[in-house]
């Protein structure tokens, strides 16, 4: 096992990793920018090294500075957390070249999964369902009609050269298909100078469901169930829950097995997440995240596994000490991401924390690096706390969350706690009856 781990991150996730290390008897090195001198992850670490000015590009994204810090402190391994350099294959490779252990997957897997086309190819071959569509450009209405009949209506027509939503059209029937293909092709030609279009199955009201996996260096891989992260605003997850209110036990078991088998086949190691769109009982691959995720705690709550601890263990060469059949899912868990933002306008609100009092009691977990008197710097992400609740059932979980939100005191700046309170009171959320578009409409009201 490692003696000393350098944590190449900040905020709550740096603290999360530090806690795991401390509980394993591993010393920690915090690296930080000048803006984070008083941050909790710096104060609580065994050693701290200032690696640069506030701008992330010169500190938390500065590979050389981080590796120098690892060298001068004599660290054995580096945990990248999420964001920053966590999915940077070059960094992972540099870490290993310098003789440190990268606590995460191999550079090769990070690279493969970082490229959308390669990723889709690799997972498809490993048996993971992807969005069906034409394999390339569709030339004629007949060809399009044949493919559409195969994958089922509605279909979406996208310009091969397109992007940003331009030149995209939805067809609900064979009649519409011919017309829309013509329109899309015409628009594609005028906008992108290339009339080529391709077809994909159109998902009108999908949920975002992702499967957490863990794998070691010895060919063992397990899944830890799913998380429903459909509540998003501008592609940022706001609240996540596990299990998903939309899955039944059979679907859960089936997709979990498919994913675990694929992960084993790919030869992946460490923690990772396969993200899907889910609609009408079917899963469609979006991407794989080759790192620890913000919302990992809800999985820890329902399956009783410390994911960060396991990441550290497997990267030190230890085998997973549980098999798929040892993993039991118990109860329900929800995470509220609390941001330093105006809860209506979502304008970020950095500043100094006045009173700070976290909720306590049964079933409450708070992952946060806040403390009374701390100043939230304006340079980084606005997420300042994760309130995670666990209870026997989804309904009890909602009641407990409501109670915890009402106890949470964060004075001195605006937070999104009121948004979460509004969500708790909303029947659509209470019924678990939302898709990835719902929250955007809800907050727009």
């Amino acid at each position: 096992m490692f003696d000393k781990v350098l944590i190449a991150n900040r905020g709550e996730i740096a603290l999360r990793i530090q806690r795991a290390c401390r509980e394993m008897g591993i010393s920690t090195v915090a690296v930080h920018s000048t803006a984070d001198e008083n941050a909790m992850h710096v104060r609580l670490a065994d050693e701290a090294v200032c690696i640069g000015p506030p701008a992330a590009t010169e500190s938390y994204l500065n590979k050389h500075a981080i590796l120098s810090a690892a060298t001068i402190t004599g660290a054995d391994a580096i945990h990248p957390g999420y964001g920053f350099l966590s999915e940077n294959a070059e960094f992972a490779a540099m870490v290993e070249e310098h003789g440190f252990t990268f606590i995460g997957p191999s550079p090769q897997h990070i690279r493969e999964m970082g490229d959308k086309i390669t990723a889709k190819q690799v997972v498809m071959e490993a048996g993971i369902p992807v969005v069906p569509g034409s394999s390339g450009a569709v030339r004629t209405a007949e060809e399009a009609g044949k493919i559409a009949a195969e994958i089922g209506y509605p279909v979406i027509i996208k310009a091969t050269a397109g992007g940003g939503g331009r030149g995209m059209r939805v067809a609900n029937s064979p009649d519409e298909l011919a017309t829309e293909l013509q329109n899309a092709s015409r628009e594609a030609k005028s906008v992108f100078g290339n009339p080529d279009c391709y077809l994909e199955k159109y998902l009108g009201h999908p949920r975002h469901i992702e499967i957490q996996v863990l794998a070691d260096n010895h060919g063992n891989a397990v899944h830890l169930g799913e998380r429903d992260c459909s509540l998003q605003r501008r592609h940022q997850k706001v609240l996540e829950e596990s299990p998903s209110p939309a899955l039944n036990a059979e679907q859960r078991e089936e997709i979990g097995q498919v994913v675990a088998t694929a992960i084993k086949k790919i030869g992946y190691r460490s923690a990772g997440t396969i993200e899907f769109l889910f609609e009408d009982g079917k899963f469609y691959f979006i991407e794989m995240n080759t790192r620890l995720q913000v919302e990992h705690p809800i999985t820890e709550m329902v399956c009783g596994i410390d994911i960060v601890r396991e990441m550290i263990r497997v990267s030190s060469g230890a085998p997973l000490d549980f098999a798929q059949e040892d993993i039991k899912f118990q109860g329900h868990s929800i995470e509220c991401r609390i941001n330093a933002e105006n809860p209506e306008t979502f304008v970020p609100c950095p500043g100094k924390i006045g009173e700070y009092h976290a909720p306590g009691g049964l079933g409450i977990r708070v992952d946060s690096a806040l403390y009374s008197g701390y100043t939230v710097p304006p340079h980084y992400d606005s997420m300042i706390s994760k309130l995670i609740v666990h209870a026997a059932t989804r309904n009890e979980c909602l009641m407990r969350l409501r109670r915890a939100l009402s106890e949470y005191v964060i004075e001195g700046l605006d937070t999104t706690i009121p948004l979460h309170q509004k969500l708790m009171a909303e029947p659509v959320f209470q019924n678990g009856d939302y898709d990835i578009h719902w929250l955007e409409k809800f907050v727009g009201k």
Partner: protein
Amino acid sequence: MSKSDIDNDMVRQLAELLDETGLTEIEFGKGDWHIRIAKSGTVVQAQAPVAAPPAAPVAVVAPEVAAVNPGTIKSPMVGVAYLTPEPDTPNFVAVGDSVTEGQTIMLIEAMKVFNPIHAPKAGKVIQIIAENGSPVEFGEPLMIIE
């Protein structure tokens, strides 16, 4: 307790001290008692203690000295400081030396690369803070040139 426990002279003395020194607050404790006096106006607060999580971080190296001196040269990167061009050669500069703008005054090794640190202006070496072969953090004072 009795009122004679309060030493009027001491309060007056402290008040005078406060005025004389331009302080806004004096607190004093001894054994089982303490006294605190304050004067507002410019007083912002008799401040709440900083919410310090308990364990003090062990900075790898953290001399506070000279951090504010305008002639202080701070480390532009994390690395290891070298005061000599090669092992067993004399230091680039010594205290009391005059240096010219752009002159190499030390090296910082980061990622196997030795980065020369240049004097930002001409002047005299007042103090060499970094030690040969010691790790330095970003922003850590290396030398004072005036």
